[in-house]
């Protein structure tokens, strides 16, 4: 099959789009795919995209709105901005984890299948308190305890919906997936307004 955009090269990328439950299929060649904008998926067509980027792009529902709001967050210790972190999939220092925590924890869960360390704990730890950069401690410092408490429930809902969305995509149940995605969107909007 020829690429539907250039109609010259062989199409070797099949792109399936689901908008409001309507599924459309496209066939592109690699070069056209590179030139087109697939949002968070575009990185796939770069020659050296890091795995983390692809995974943080998965389920990137509402990513662009969130992105605009958060690109100003900068780690005070090393100067890495959230934008740079997303671009390079690379932390600048240990403190970045605490600074970006709320922004990245969902992505981390997608990437790693978990967001909680279960393994070895350093036997010797003498400079900094390991608790210092955990979510609780951080929001405590910023006086955001209350906000966090209110978010807990919708956050859990979001997590469930995202899991369902993922499952639906895996099973190719695109209509269900679209409905979950819409629910996630409205829940996110609700969260933003409160």
């Amino acid at each position, binding site marked *: 099959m020829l690429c539907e955009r250039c109609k010259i090269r062989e199409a070797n990328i099949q792109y399936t789009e689901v908008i409001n439950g309507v599924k459309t299929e496209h066939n592109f060649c690699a070069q056209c795919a590179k030139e087109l904008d697939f949002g968070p998926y575009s990185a796939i067509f770069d020659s050296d995209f890091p795995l983390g980027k692809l995974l943080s792009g998965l389920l990137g529902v509402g990513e662009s709105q969130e992105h605009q709001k958060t690109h100003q967050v900068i780690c005070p210790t090393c100067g890495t901005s959230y934008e740079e972190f997303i671009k390079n999939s690379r932390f600048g220092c240990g403190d970045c984890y605490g600074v970006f925590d709320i922004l990245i924890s969902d992505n981390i869960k997608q990437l790693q299948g978990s967001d909680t360390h279960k393994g070895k704990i350093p036997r*010797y*730890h003498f400079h900094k308190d390991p608790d210092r950069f955990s979510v609780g401690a951080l929001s405590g410092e910023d006086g955001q305890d209350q906000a966090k408490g209110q978010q807990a429930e919708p956050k859990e809902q979001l997590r469930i919906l995202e899991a369902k969305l993922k499952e639906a995509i895996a099973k190719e149940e695109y209509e269900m997936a679209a409905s979950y995605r819409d629910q996630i969107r409205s829940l996110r909007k609700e969260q933003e307004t409160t």
Partner: protein
Amino acid sequence: MKWFEYVDKEYPGAISSRVRLVRNWDQYAFPSRLTQKESMEMVRRLEQGLRDLGSFDGKKYEYAFLDELSELDRKALRERRIFNSTIASLKMPAKVILSEEEDTSIVLNGTDHIRLQLLSPGLNLEALWKQADKLDDYINERFSYAFDKKYGYLTSFPTNMGTGMRASVVLHLPSLSLGKKFSGLVSEMGRFGASVKGVYGEGGDNYGALFQVSNQKTLGLTEKEIVDLVGRVAAQLLNQENQVRSMALQKHRLECEDEAFKAYGVLKYARRLSAKDAMLLLSQLMSGISDGILETREPCPVYRLMLGIQPANLQKLSDRPLGKEELDAARASYLRAELPELK
């Protein structure tokens, strides 16, 4: 002797095991955020603290700045898996601490401050993790790590966070990888959290039928669980390989023998060998030896030969850069010299 030269430790099918831990010192930003001066200072301090490493585990260590090594040396270390491609091309001050047998290495200021790696022949992850655990404590006694209760060991890349551990095994799967079901099997392993990929090859091609199994995830699993997972997947694949292989030996004994002896003959007498051909023949030789079809007078460490015929090593041996034609000739002459006689 290097770790990969011990023939008696060679196990059929399981070539080598590797455990790698990445750690960061909580006194400095991660390497990508350090200035030249800070990098230099940190590397010096880390190295100072690890000077007595040899007296801790009884091994002999060499310490070298990466920029003191020639490009060829770096490439050769990359071929022997001491460096990964990122480390081999680092610009900032970085240091490698390498044991004489090359089974233990520490890279300072690579993509993370500390990258500890242990290698051994065969399927040996549990023992390697124990060693790594001890060495990790030794380092941690001197340098406190960037660690978070929730996210574990903090690393430059989110793909390493948590345990900072990658456990991997290299397997020889010549029969299994020929089958149509192999790619399905590989993606099946992905669902268990293990990735399987070819070690040598270009594009979609695989040379030598060596495959690396490693853990995909580093967070949310204990180190023991990672070791078990990779070990289990490796054992499963080896088991399948053996089944396919023994069936082939039963039904097509003559073809198997012919393939092994032809491989030996070409390797022993050829005057020019491309990397692709040599790897395929060595893979067939490896099968022949482990099936008991071929017996050599002296033990024949096939994996060592596979490492030996890589371009940087051949260029090192001939002490000069080689063009493609020269490389193919050097490869054939290396194999003629190194391959033991048949019994």
